[in-house]
């Protein structure tokens, strides 16, 4: 997270991680497609000739927050300047999934506030998913970040394909795990927005817990994600969308340090 008081902006960095060809770029394309035009910049893709991501894809989501209506006399928070609000920049990146781009993955992962792990639902990809998650963990470790401290949501993508892990299995796994789990078919856009807001919710709850961002922005803590959704042109209620989460914790819980 970068906070620029002079420029009145907050930048949050979200990274879509996962094995090669699991649909990270497709998620970003869908996100670009499904959000209001005035809330995002161009989707930048740095890809090779065969459509594989070379360095990263980047989608900037840009809107102003902090001009949410307040009840008169409400003193529960003290915005820096209640009339101005802050401009919020959420930069969503993907990493290149191919094993050989390890160095690039680490570079893109630097300074990430939250990670969406895009897993391939096909049973044949089970090993690749696990290997990629271990790769994420070791890269975070190299960057001196514990995987426990990083807000991570897991998306099981490609639900439209045959020979996939069943909903029941995923649900069972999700309920035993720590990370919130979503299902998606990024190609059709299904589940993409839900996963994104699951990640934004989790990441926001961590940033809020650590930096009291709501005071800086001038917004009620619980209002942030719904405001973001409205600004991005999402008609559905965030709370309803988050119900599609199959398990795990959507609120950040600080890790007890030994």
């Amino acid at each position, binding site marked *: 997270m970068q906070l620029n008081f002079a420029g009145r902006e907050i930048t949050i960095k979200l990274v879509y991680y996962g094995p090669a060809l699991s649909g990270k770029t497709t998620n970003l394309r869908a996100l670009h497609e499904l959000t209001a035009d005035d809330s995002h910049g161009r989707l930048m893709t740095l890809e090779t000739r065969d459509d594989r991501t070379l360095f990263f894809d980047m989608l900037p989501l*840009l809107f102003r927050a902090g001009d949410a209506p307040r009840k008169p006399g409400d003193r529960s928070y003290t915005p820096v300047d209640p009339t101005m609000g802050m401009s919020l920049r959420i930069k969503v*990146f993907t990493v290149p999934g191919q094993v050989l781009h390890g*160095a690039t993955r680490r*570079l893109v992962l*630097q300074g990430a506030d939250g990670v969406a792990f895009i897993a391939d639902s096909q049973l044949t990809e089970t090993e690749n998913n696990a290997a990629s998650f271990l790769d994420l963990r070791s890269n975070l470790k190299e960057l001196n970040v514990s995987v426990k401290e990083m807000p991570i949501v897991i998306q099981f993508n490609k639900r439209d394909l045959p020979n996939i892990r069943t909903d029941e299995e995923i649900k069972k796994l999700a309920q035993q795990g720590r990370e919130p789990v979503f299902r998606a078919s990024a190609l059709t856009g299904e589940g993409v927005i839900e996963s994104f807001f699951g990640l934004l919710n989790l990441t926001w709850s961590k940033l809020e817990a650590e930096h009291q961002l709501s005071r800086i922005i001038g917004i009620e803590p619980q209002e942030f994600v719904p405001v973001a959704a409205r600004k991005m042109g999402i008609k559905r209620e965030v709370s309803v969308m988050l119900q599609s989460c199959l398990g795990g914790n959507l609120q950040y819980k600080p890790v007890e340090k030994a």
Partner: protein
Amino acid sequence: MNEAKPTDAIATIDIDATLRLEDLVDREALVELCDSFFTLFGIPVRVLSKDGTLLADATREQEVCGYINTFASGRAACGATVGAVKIKDPDEEGTLIHPCFSGLQYRIVAIDYEARRIGRFILGPYLPAEVSDVPSSLLDIDEAVDREKAKSLLFKVPRAKPETVQRVARHLKAALDLILFSGHKTLLTSQMHLVSVRESFRELTERQNRLQEAYDRLRELDRLKSNFLATVSHELRTPLTSIIGYGEMLAEGIAGPLNDEQKEFVGTIREKGEQLLQLIQSLLDMSKLESGTMSVRKEKIRLEDVLSEVVKTLTPNARKKGVVLRLECDASLPGLRADPERLRQVFINLGDNAIKFTPSGGTVTYRATPLEQGRVGRESDFGFALLAPSRSQLEVRVIDTGIGIPLAEREKVFDPFYQVDSSSTREYGGTGLGLSIVKRLVEAHDGTIHVEEGSPRGAVFVVTLPVAGSAEAG
């Protein structure tokens, strides 16, 4: 060798760094773009960076402005207007219209990228379509202003409806946006390229250091092993020499006469003792070769002398086995720089082997020939045309008519302790050290050794050695 300096910190890149308009666009190309807009619509265009630096300017002084500038007060007013236009920054809305006292107008439009203000462009001056007469503010600058002249000049300025100017602004903004996006993408790509390479390099350096450490550790272990082998061989040899010596004394009857059976037993003890000594000697040679402490004393020698001595040494052995030993030396053999003792060891070993594997009635032949100049090495070798003429080698073939060596085994026979037939009941004895020592000794002379198939059967060991004075003779 220059050691690469290890970079210990992980490379960093600020993907969300604040961008500057002047870094994203090529100034000359920007000027061309502004020129083309000016040519197309007749409205002057100026592009300024965020801090007000003029980056591109496509404009021509209007005649009316020239006229106004002939009056001192007009010059002052004009300067004030232009100054104001240059410093005004449009607010959130992104567009600002600034009127001139002459009735002309400027439109100032913000250039934003990713919701950040990075510069602005100014369209104008142009004459708003609705202006039908010279405004009093223009006439007021000086009493001497000629109304008719001012009017005719004013109306020469390109006229534009607000929608038209807005459309031009939108087009320019779209064109700039595309350029900025492409520029940003290229900037990020090149930065990522650079940083990725640096990061990969860091990773490789780290890995290389770990490998180097492991390699050093292994080398140390290897050295310890060779030392151990050398020490043990030496320690084994000392008591063995005594055993053989006392055996000899017994056989000579120094301690009293022996009967035939006792003589035979003592003979066996001596023979086996000698065998054991030879084995230990081989181990010692091997460890010396491995630890690099074997000294090769090169001197000028004649190969014929070495080979005839070898044949002389091996003749009794061959005769016992019923094998014919032949030596064929080319009359024009050049001289060598080599260690005669070591070469003898090489050819005795090869001959010994050949005799061992050749059945009674067969032959073992030493054939020494000089290699034709320019025929040494393969055509595909690098620098062949330069190196071949300076290379001069000779070749010794040790040809037997024995059982031969299967193709798949021909490389492996030179590995230490390797036996083609490694079963415990194998027909032919030996430690399996001989050929590996031979190979190392040949290599210590900058030569090569390989095995070929005999004709019609048997094996041929081919040794090549550089001739004295040739480029590769050490």
